[in-house]
């Protein structure tokens, strides 16, 4: 379907949180006549073709005491980005290993070293300056305040990593951008994290919606803005289901445990009646297997409900992202396929000791690309090159915190 009078652009750009989400954007200047070119995203090649690269990266990383990892990650991204096509033409990752390396070194000196010194030196210095009573108290206050500051930085790290990746992503030579304040995002990230803790997690959908809205509305492809119009409300029904799933899992575990140890319970009741001390029989392997089985079943229930919420959120986020007022595309993530993708990816990365993580990363992106449908057309010549400065350093903060905007 092509909407007349409106041009439309759709691009696949990675975004924050647990995995990539495609988004649509809005032109800043709407041209009067639609010359829409139909848009199709597709995936080219097999994620497994990155297995060799994963092995090479691991070997070189070990040989260089970790220094190569920045170049290895860059090479993996270059290959993965090129597997995503829009109208047949590949996406391009233009970041370099050196940028990632320098970004990390700078963060090492302004964050990691002060952190080590704060933990190891401040208590001594405080005691030295203020004596044995006031010193440790002041030292503890300094350390705790520092921790708060560090937590404040986590959200900014996510945002800045996203900005780095978008400015290093190109299609037909046009690059992405993120134009807002990383401090504002970091602050939202921080206070909602604390508030969510005190509301027993019930702010989770509201929080993800808030963070997603800020990030999406700050995103650009060229000069063209993205707009997100979703609300937290529709995310609550699947979220309530997660809690119900938790209850079901609890009943399964308790009931299952009672079933597995039924004879044991009977024996101890009899022993109590006869007044003899119970003699515990050694644990049978059937009982051990039963207990593991019960916990596995409970865990699976929680995972399925969690995946359902996750899939609904992804679809909702995608379907409510707009471009020039038009919602023209649809994501079809489903709980089971998502669960399988996440579990198999987890096993891939863990069982291969991280060697296959580029494969897992590619599978994660392919999952979204292959389930995305785009309706309508885009006046590509109306999308102008970004004028936002690209910045010189890469996502060091995110690396130091081990948070990732991408995978």
């Amino acid at each position, binding site marked *: 379907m092509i909407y007349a009078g409106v041009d439309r*652009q759709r691009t696949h750009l990675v975004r924050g949180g647990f995995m990539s989400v495609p988004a649509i954007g809005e032109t800043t200047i709407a041209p009067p006549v639609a010359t829409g070119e139909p848009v199709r995203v597709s995936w080219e090649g097999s994620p497994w073709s990155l297995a060799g690269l994963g092995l090479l990266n691991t070997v*070189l990383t070990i040989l*260089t*005491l*970790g*220094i*190569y*990892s*920045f*170049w290895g990650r*860059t*090479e993996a991204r*270059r*290959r993965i980005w*090129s597997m995503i096509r829009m109208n047949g*033409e*590949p996406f*391009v990752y*233009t970041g*370099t*290993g*050196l940028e990632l*390396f320098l970004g*990390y070194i700078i963060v*090492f000196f302004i964050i*990691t*070293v002060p*952190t*080590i*010194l704060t*933990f*190891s*030196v401040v*208590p*001594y*210095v405080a*005691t*030295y300056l203020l004596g044995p009573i006031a010193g440790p108290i002041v030292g503890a206050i300094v350390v705790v305040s520092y*921790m708060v500051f*560090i*937590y404040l930085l*986590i959200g900014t790290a996510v945002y800045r990593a996203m900005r780095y990746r978008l400015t290093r992503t*190109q*299609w*037909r*030579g*046009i*690059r992405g951008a993120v134009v807002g304040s990383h401090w504002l995002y970091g602050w939202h990230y921080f206070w909602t994290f604390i508030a969510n803790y005190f509301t027993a997690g019930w702010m989770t959908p509201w929080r993800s919606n808030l963070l997603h809205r800020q990030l999406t509305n700050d995103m650009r*492809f*060229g000069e063209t803005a993205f707009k997100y119009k979703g609300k937290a409300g529709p995310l609550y029904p699947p979220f309530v289901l997660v809690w119900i799933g938790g209850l079901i899992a609890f009943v399964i575990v308790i009931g299952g445990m009672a079933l597995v140890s039924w004879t044991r319970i009977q024996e101890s009741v009899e022993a109590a009646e006869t007044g003899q001390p119970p003699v515990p029989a050694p644990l049978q392997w059937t009982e051990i297997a039963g207990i593991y089985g019960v916990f596995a079943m409970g865990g699976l229930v929680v995972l399925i409900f969690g995946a359902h919420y996750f899939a609904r959120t992804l679809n909702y986020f995608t379907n409510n992202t707009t471009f020039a007022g038009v919602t023209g595309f649809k994501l079809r993530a489903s709980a089971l396929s998502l669960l399988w993708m996440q579990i198999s990816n987890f096993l891939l990365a863990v069982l291969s000791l991280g060697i296959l993580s580029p494969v897992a990363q590619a599978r994660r992106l392919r999952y979204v690309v292959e389930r995305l449908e785009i309706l309508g057309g885009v006046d*590509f*010549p109306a*999308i*102008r*090159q970004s004028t936002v400065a690209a910045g010189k350093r890469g996502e060091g903060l995110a*690396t*130091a*915190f*081990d*948070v990732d905007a991408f995978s």
Partner: protein
Amino acid sequence: MSMDTTTFAARWSDGQTAGSYRALVRLGHALEIAPEGVTEPVRWSPHRTMASVPLWPSSAEVLLRSLDHPGQTIYVEDPGFAAALLKVAPHLAAGSKRWRDIRPGLTVTAAVALVTGAVLALDLSPAAYVASLLPKDIRTIAGQQVLQVFTQGQGYCEAPEGNAALQTLTQKLKSASNTDAEFTVAVVNWELVNAFALPGEQIVVTRGLIEKAQSGDEVAGVVAHEMGHGIELHPEAGMVRAIGIAAAAELVFTGSSGTVGTLGTQMLELSYSRSAEREADEHALRILKEARISPKPLAEFFDRLAKEFDEPEDGSDAYELFSTHPPSPERSKLAAEAATYDSEPAMTSADWAALKAVCAGQPTVEDAPPEPSQQPPLPPT
């Protein structure tokens, strides 16, 4: 589809917008691009051209960008183009590009290896230098912190007569050391045989060592050796080194190893290099000579422990001393040769008996204290 062997059909983007043009690319000394509807052809220097998608001779598609024309791209879907392009611009091949990309990384690795090698080869100790800058109060507080971790729930042996005897010995050795160092010596209630020097001129001797020793001279030798470590600031250097190693590990493992939390553990496992041990021994011999105490009993003590180390009576790991103070023939010889002056016992027999009983009445504690709890260096995610 190729028109001839050097001209190929392509799509060209101008870098201003996301539109694209049909174009012809001719491979010669330059890449000559003739977009449809654009009068002036565009020329790219092959040396300023980059492959945006990894490029092999067999690649079915080629995506290029130019450093001279930011944003411009050429996309060619022609199985013959990659091989033809690589003839003109071999540096675009994925392999050689990758090699160029990782060169800075390899340079950094080589530089780190070189500096590390130089520090080891020239026996430089940056940690010792930093340690020498620390004021006395800081060193004392650091030592007290380590001692606190050390003695968690273990306690000291504090029988008054024994303690007084130890103080007398300490004073004697301290004045013989000819330094301003204010040494304090304490006995901790552990069964293992060991002695430690801690930051801030603090020395700890274990109950196991006191009970294993056969004379006050032996204990005096051990204490003098630990004083040697203290004079040379070896414990302080070890602490600085531990922090440095933690920082380096944090750097190498990109912040994932929780190294800061293991600092305390590392400080407990201070083990000195051979040269540090030799320095401490030299100080010990000097102090003992000045105090007119024979170093022979110390050598004998080491020999005896070495023998028992080979055939432990109880099969235990009680001779922990040897993991940090490896016995060496040179060391025994050094002690034996130095015994060329008149000497008197380090302690009166009454004092020695009192010291021997400093832990009497206290239940023995078999194991070293638990490791200090670990703190995450950065918030978990």
